């Protein structure tokens, strides 16, 4: 009996010690106040869901309860960098004076990483990520940082792998679903993309972005009603969500309803928080497609000064070039093409997701000129190249790819390569059946 009692006591003491050690060691954050901890966790959750305002509010609350908490200071500094640079600087300075030794590893990682980012020292930031990746390989924050870095550097394969791991480790980290959804969409794996984005929407239905992402997907795949519903849901959640208005324009263009596109662009124009160039670009696109459809090329050409005030290389250049060609302004058409080519030449940096749409647009413009000049074979080669450069990375780029592909179908037909043309049209139909159907009926793509 006595032996049993001793054994029970020893086991009980060991279990209590183990429990205390586990609980103490398991604490991730050094915050002392439970209120501050709750606010910090709310901030992290908001960050996961990309809710900037909520995150900012939660970070303010953390610093109110525990002033000088370095991770909150650097995160808030990052958020305020654009809107309140002075305070951001003060917060950053404050975070620099803190002894990192008393922080836990995750906290040190956050502080070191964001100090480097805010200092715009990307090499140091990268070094911090690598250092912590060795120590905390499965930490969601470290994985997120690594995936973002890979994405930013155009290493999409690595990014996808990291996001996949992130979903395994932290299944409710929404940004991973978004990125994985876009990666799948880019490759044309729409079902997989939908799975990711539906999961994203399931986790954060009160966020605009998942609705917008799904809206883009549905737009590309010809599910226009669903696309409209999701995009409307996005703007309902967040009426200042510019991208959703733009994507509504794209939906209508894909649906062949240029007037509706124009109306959607009008809604976007009323959103003051959207960048002016973005608003103007989408409004021009909708109007030009409408005018082009009606053969009113003079009006297109006359509006070029206002619409091409952007540095971006988009479909607007193509439409303007087409107007010049239609109006017999060959030199202007060539000039537009050359300007576009020059505009992208000095740009550096990694290749964007969906390959490089700018180069694709330039090749597209060349192809249209070649065709106009009767060199259909050359036009087809250039279009094929442009097609290859583009993925379905969202509706704005995806609509270009679909337009290019339909033009190729037309060119292949003109070249007598009916079989290839038919196969290509089938591929388009596999992506967006209504679009292919409409093309068969009208011979028109979403833009031209």
């Amino acid at each position, binding site marked *: 009996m006595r032996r049993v009692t001793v054994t029970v006591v020893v086991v009980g003491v060991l279990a209590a010690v183990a429990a205390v050690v586990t609980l103490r060691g398991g604490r991730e954050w050094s915050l002392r106040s439970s209120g501050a901890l709750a606010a910090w966790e709310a901030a992290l959750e908001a960050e996961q869901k990309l809710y900037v305002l909520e995150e900012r509010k939660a970070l303010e609350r953390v610093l109110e309860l525990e002033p000088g908490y370095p991770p909150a200071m650097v995160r808030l500094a990052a958020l305020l960098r654009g809107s309140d640079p002075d305070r951001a600087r003060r917060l950053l300075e404050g975070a620099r004076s803190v002894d990192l030794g008393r922080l836990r590893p995750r906290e040190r990682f956050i502080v070191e990483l964001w100090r480097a980012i805010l200092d715009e020292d990307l090499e140091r930031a990268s070094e911090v990520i690598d250092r912590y990746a060795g120590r905390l390989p499965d930490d969601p924050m470290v994985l997120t940082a690594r995936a973002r870095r890979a994405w930013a550097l155009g290493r999409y394969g690595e990014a996808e792998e990291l996001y996949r791991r992130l*979903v395994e480790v932290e*299944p*409710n980290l929404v940004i991973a679903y978004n990125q994985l959804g876009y990666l799948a969409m880019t490759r044309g794996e729409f*079902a997989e993309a*939908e*799975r990711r984005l*539906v*999961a994203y*929407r*399931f*986790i*954060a*239905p009160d966020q605009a972005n998942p609705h917008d992402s799904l809206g883009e997907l549905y737009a590309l795949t010809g599910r226009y009603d669903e696309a409209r519903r999701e995009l409307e849901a996005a703007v309902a959640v967040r009426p200042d969500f510019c991208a959703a208005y733009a994507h509504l324009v794209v939906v209508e263009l894909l649906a062949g309803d240029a007037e509706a596109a124009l109306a959607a662009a009008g809604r976007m124009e009323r959103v003051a928080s959207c960048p002016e160039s973005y608003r103007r670009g989408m409004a021009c696109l909708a109007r030009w497609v409408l005018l082009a459809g009606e053969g009113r090329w003079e009006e297109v050409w006359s509006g070029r000064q206002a619409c091409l005030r952007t540095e971006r290389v988009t479909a607007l250049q193509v439409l303007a070039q087409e107007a010049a060609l239609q109006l017999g302004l060959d030199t202007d058409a060539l000039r537009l093409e050359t300007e576009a080519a020059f505009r992208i030449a000095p740009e550096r940096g990694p290749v964007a997701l969906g390959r490089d749409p700018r180069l694709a647009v330039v090749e597209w413009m060349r192809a249209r000129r070649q065709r106009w000049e009767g060199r259909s074979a050359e036009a087809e080669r250039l279009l094929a190249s442009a097609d290859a450069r583009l993925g379905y990375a969202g509706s704005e780029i995806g609509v270009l790819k679909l337009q290019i592909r339909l033009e190729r179908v037309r060119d292949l037909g003109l070249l007598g390569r009916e079989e290839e043309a038919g196969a290509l049209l089938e591929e388009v139909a596999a992506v967006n059946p209504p679009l292919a159907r409409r093309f068969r009926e009208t011979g028109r793509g979403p833009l031209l």
Partner: protein
Amino acid sequence: MPVPGRRSVLWLAAVGGLAFLLAGLSVADMYLPRPFDGVVLEADAPGRLVVRQVVPDSGAARAGIRPGDRILGVDREVLRSAGQAASLLNRHRIGDVVPYLVDGAGGLREVQVELGRRRIGGSAYLYVAVLGFAFFFVGVFVFSRQPELPAARVFFLMSALFLLFLVCRLRPASYSWVDTFVLTTGTAALLLLPATFLYFFLLFPDPVWEWRRDPLARAAGWMARRGLLVPVLYLVPPLVYAATVGLARRGRIPLQLISGAPAPNWWVMAGYMVLGLGALAAAGFRHPQPEQRRGALLVFVGTLLGVAPFLAAAVAAPALLRTERFLYWGVVPLILVPLTFAYAIVRFQLLRIRVILRRSLLYSATTILLTVLYAAGIVSFSSFFSGTAFAASPWFPIVFALVIVLLFEPLRNLLREPLERFFFAERAQLERTLGELGEAFATATDLEAVVRSLVERLPEQLHVAFAALYLPRDGSLARAAGPATLPREVRLPPALEEHVRRRGRVVELAQLRPLRALSVEVEAAVAPLEAAGVQVLGLLASTRGVVGLALLGARTRGAPFEPEDLRLLRNLLGQAAMGLETSLLLEERMRRVELERDLAIAASIQSQLLPAAVTLGPGWEVAAVCRPAREVGGDFYAELPCGRRDRRALVWGDVSGKSVPGALLMMAAHEVLHALALVEPDPQRLLELANRRLYGLARRQFVAVGYLAPVGGPGRLRYVLAGQPPPVLRRRDGRVEELPLPPHRVPLGAMRGGGYRSLDVTLEPGDLLVVHSDGLVEARSADGEELGWVRLREMVASGPGRPEEMVEHLVRGLEAFTGGAAPYDDVTIAVVGRGGGSGCDG
């Protein structure tokens, strides 16, 4: 047979208790009011939350969730585990609508599920659970009756594992951790069940290596003798499981589970099942004992018919074909397994159980019959009243159920006899025979017949080596009948008697071990019985106390005594005790009648011994009377010759002891004194010789005697007193005096030596000498007061002058004093007066 370690029995009982607790909790958990979506998860896809079944009309069913779908998220969280889903759902209340992320044939979709009350598990599961518990209770019964039998212990373990497998593994699982825990327990039970199955059939009905000589049996025996059999049998399944899971994880191969166990384990299980059934079939065909053979064959057939459909329809079909359509048909035949076990145990006495589950069998049969009646009634009445309000009324089944409940008891009584005839023919026969025997005992009047019946018929009926009966004699119990190898006498120490009484008057000697260890007396009483082969001790006791002791030897078939046997024996011995008591009372009564007759004869003889008139010779007047306290008294008086033909001596005596022994001694003393007086006139010598004679005749008995005879001078008398009180002399002038006592006056027969001395006294005319036995002065009044010397002297002083009148006076005085009550002791009075003449020596 070795007695099982208390520890191992406790361990097994603990395992069984735990299994019962788990199964009970599992069933109870399913009825907890918890928000439930209607989804039953696939048990063989742990962590993947695959829908196996959707409860009809549940929230999940209405939301379009279908079997085969995967639940990926609940309540805006993508799930990592079923437990997470449970905790998320438990935040909600019944009636809440919760979003689900479901992956199925239509792709990933979000649906809204309304949470309802938890109700999972259909009739098939209910049946399975009832079956599991039924089998478990059969195991508990067998184990409680025969904990020392290895096969009974393994059978108990098997029934516990079977319970866990049926209740836990086949449980419709939802998300809660309880489900995971219960399912894991069920899987563990499933892994170990075939090992237990095989082990049981290797031991059942007897260890296979004890009666078979083939290599497999020898190998099993070799392993069993070295203690390897159990570890090997039980370790193989978990090791195979661990290896399979380990290899699958290492090779990143998806592990296909069938009812929770990977395919290699099913191969191991199949091997175990084949070996177990092979051993059972071998016992069914080759066991040396025909009874055991028949029982084993029955169990083999029942197991085969029960397990094979179960494996095919309830295990393989859901796992491989993903359908539960055949589940019910796989589960229903499983009832054959416990039923055949129970029947074989009852009918063929497998596991050496003689009586089993009579009541439960009866109730089960009644319940089944009534359930069938109920179902048939509901169906037929529903169709009969179809379309009417009555058929749709919720009261209809309730009223019907009440009718069935009322029918239950009469129906059970109706079923009792046929069932007992069918299942318990031998037992019924035994009970009948013992009942008849008991009745015969209860009405028996012949003690010898009771004893003979008990000792001769009990071994025959109960199949015991011998029976013996001890009856009370001189404070102990003497063997009245039974083998000579048993002790002649048995003394029951009070502690043992009390213990046996408290245990219902019948105990097995093995049950007395603790008491024997505590009491030396009990050990001394029981050890010789044990050495003589006694196994059961039965006390025959009545209201008068212990009237006998029955001892029984070992069972001739080697089986232990069942509690049911002991119960029957107890009843029988109770009736035998009544019979014995009756016989003893009757015998005593007969003896009393005989004694009374003897007493009458003795009294008649005694009265003839007393002379009608006494005289001392011429010149003397003597009157005497003797009043015995019982029919036969111990007092007497007589005339003796005293040397001269015309003179006589008067002797009066008082024998110690009354009734027949006293009378016999009185007659002996009377004869001795007469015989000696013929040759010895000297009173001192006479009494001396009589003392020697009586001392030799009657040990521990003696005779007080007084002697009075006339001697030479006128009115002179010589007296000798041997234990008698002094005579009282009343002079003519009325003075009363007690005569002096001689120095030695020990009663005759009390001591070897004599030394009696005579004294003389002279009576004047008119004087009266009163001699008497001590019964006169010791006579008691109604208040218990003695008459005493003072009153005697007063009575003598106030008495008349003639001896006869004085005697009458004294008798009346005595009667007046005692109030006419029966005298306390015999009373003899003789009064002597002067008439004229010479003495004996003169």
